[in-house]
């Protein structure tokens, strides 16, 4: 992992297995659907972070507030010096989203388990149904780093600007406008389908290998730079609700070291339903093989 720009934000399964009882490490499983994941079995000592309940403001459509973040950290027995190791269901998407929100609120040492829950189970490592409890702490967050987040008006202002890049990490079918959301996602559809004008389609999964670990830095660099997503630009990532794009935000920010990357968490479920914003429909720009 040393070829990444910030290898310290990734831990592998072996490292985690050796630090489960470390007092300075708190392992958090971030799930969209805890009943299908954490509640069935999890990494020993890991605490549940329920994405819908804990990472979102349940009244407004928003990420958790600074006060809610502080309350979450206190409940999990976390201090500003604690090393947080995140993993979760759905290929680490929601863990990446939590990573992003924790960075917005300035927690210094947050790490992602490379390969996530899938790799832990793939390797036959220990799991438990026991839930840990912690002594509450007094946690006060840093001032929010809003540069990590982009909102609709800001994205609209970027359209057509050469010094910015928009990365749509959804599937080609969503990007080209064949569908606005898969039919089983009744709450995530949109009035219009397509993508934000000027965006390039680089599905999130192109950043990982078969075992869900991240591709080597060289391959990642080639993947993004060959599509015009270069570190000299300010980059905005988006998907449908902002969690897959958190995964790509993580790759660009920490594995490749791009200095200016923001996640547009309103994503297609906001853009595709909004009045007065343009939509583009086109073929996905998948790289074509070079003729012999």
């Amino acid at each position, binding site marked *: 992992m040393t070829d990444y720009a910030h290898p310290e934000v990734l831990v592998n399964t072996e490292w985690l297995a050796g630090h489960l009882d470390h007092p300075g490490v708190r392992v958090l499983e971030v799930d*969209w659907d805890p009943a*299908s994941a954490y509640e*069935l079995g999890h990494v020993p000592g890991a605490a549940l972070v329920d994405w819908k309940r804990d990472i979102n403001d349940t009244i407004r459509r928003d990420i958790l507030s600074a006060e809610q973040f502080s309350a979450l950290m206190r409940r999990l027995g976390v201090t500003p010096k604690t090393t947080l190791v995140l993993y979760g269901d*759905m290929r680490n998407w929601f863990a990446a989203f939590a990573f992003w929100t924790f960075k917005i609120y300035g927690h210094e040492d947050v790490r992602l388990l490379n390969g996530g829950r899938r790799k832990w189970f793939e390797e036959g490592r220990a799991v438990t149904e026991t839930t840990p409890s912690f002594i509450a702490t007094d946690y006060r967050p840093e001032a929010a780093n809003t540069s990590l987040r982009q909102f609709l008006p800001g994205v609209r202002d970027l359209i057509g600007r050469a010094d910015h890049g928009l990365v749509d990490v959804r599937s080609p079918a969503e990007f080209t406008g064949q569908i606005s959301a898969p039919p089983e996602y009744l709450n995530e559809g949109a009035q219009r389908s397509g993508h934000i004008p000027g965006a390039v389609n680089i599905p999130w999964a192109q950043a990982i290998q078969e075992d869900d670990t991240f591709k080597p830095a060289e391959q990642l660099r080639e993947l993004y730079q060959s599509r015009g997503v270069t570190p000299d630009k300010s980059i905005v990532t988006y998907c449908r*609700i902002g969690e897959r794009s958190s995964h790509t935000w993580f790759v660009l920010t920490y594995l490749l070291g791009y200095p200016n990357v923001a996640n547009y968490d309103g994503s297609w479920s906001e853009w595709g339903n909004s009045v007065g914003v343009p939509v583009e429909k086109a073929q996905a720009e998948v790289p074509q093989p070079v003729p012999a």
Partner: protein
Amino acid sequence: MGHRNLDLATAEEGCGDSALGRVRRAYATLDPGELLEVLTTVPEQAFAVRVWARRAGGDVVEESREQGRTRIVLRRLDR
């Protein structure tokens, strides 16, 4: 006796839907005694199906693993 199949590799995992969610939905449509054959290449999914079935009162009739693919056959016991 009816027999249905669910290959978890055929649907792309998307936000808002888990592999076990698809199993639960398929299981809910079974009649008592009917079988559901679940196929997966992901050990995490096999684990989830196994534990959930036990908790849900389902009967794991068969489980095998061949060439990296796990096959779990569930039988619905009640309705």
